């Protein structure tokens, strides 16, 4: 198996995307993976959001799996609500969830 497919889906109106991308790049580097391999997908309208099943910005998928299950979150142009592992609500995913998603791909290879 090669490197996992890592997609970063974002909407420019939610300012946390740059910080989330930096977080993702750091986790990829820590895992010995190439951060330049991230597939950047800008979501610019509702049609794209529906096509991509976009539950909000930012969304990170590793081999097609969201790093945090979006549950019943509506699909559409919105800023995404994450639940951090310490219980806080945040516009950013928990780095540990990104790490765990990358670890799962190692286990699957």
């Amino acid at each position, binding site marked *: 198996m090669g490197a996992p497919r890592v997609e970063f889906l974002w909407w420019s109106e939610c300012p*946390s995307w740059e910080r989330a991308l930096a977080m993702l790049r750091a986790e990829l580097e820590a895992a010995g993976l190439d951060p330049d391999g991230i597939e950047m997908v800008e979501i610019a309208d509702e049609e794209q959001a529906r096509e991509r099943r976009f539950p909000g910005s930012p969304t990170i998928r590793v081999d097609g799996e969201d790093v945090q299950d979006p549950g019943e979150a509506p699909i559409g142009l919105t*800023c995404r*609500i994450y639940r951090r592992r310490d219980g*806080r609500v*945040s516009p950013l995913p928990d780095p540990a969830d990104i790490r765990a998603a990358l670890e799962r791909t190692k286990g699957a290879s």
Partner: protein
Amino acid sequence: MSQDRLSIGDVAPALELEDTAGERHALPAPGEAPASVVIWTCNHCPYALAWHERIQDVVREYSERGVVFLQVNSNDAERYPGDSPEAMRERVEKGEFAGPYLHDPDQAAARAFGAERTPDVFVLDGDLRLVYSGAPDADYDDPSQNAAWLRGALDAVLAGEAPDPATTDPVGCTIKWKE
């Protein structure tokens, strides 16, 4: 879209809106309160939610010093049902707000202040002149920031001084304007 944003020294436009129980709330008359704070917030935005408890702590603490707080939701609830009056009422009934949570159904209040995002904070002095606008503090993801810019602005105005900084960039979801 929003009109021009209120500038430091501008007198705030009149604001009178209903809360989730239908009771009307307005800014105090000049001289009635030492300071007033109008905060745009909402239900569906992670930035507003991340800052929410920090802001409610400020509401509780500074209300005791006579500061008037109005928290306003101006989002288009047709496009964002999570911001409907019913959803607002549910949060109030759960005790999530330390002060009135007001609905701005025609978005006129947001336009009049030039509010841009949720959250977006406007601090007024006793004469209803703007002394601070922007974010509650420097980092939505760091609760230890403790709404320092908002607290600093209130401490300054209550001491008769000018806040520093007087403006910061609001950070959050854009207000969802009606199309």
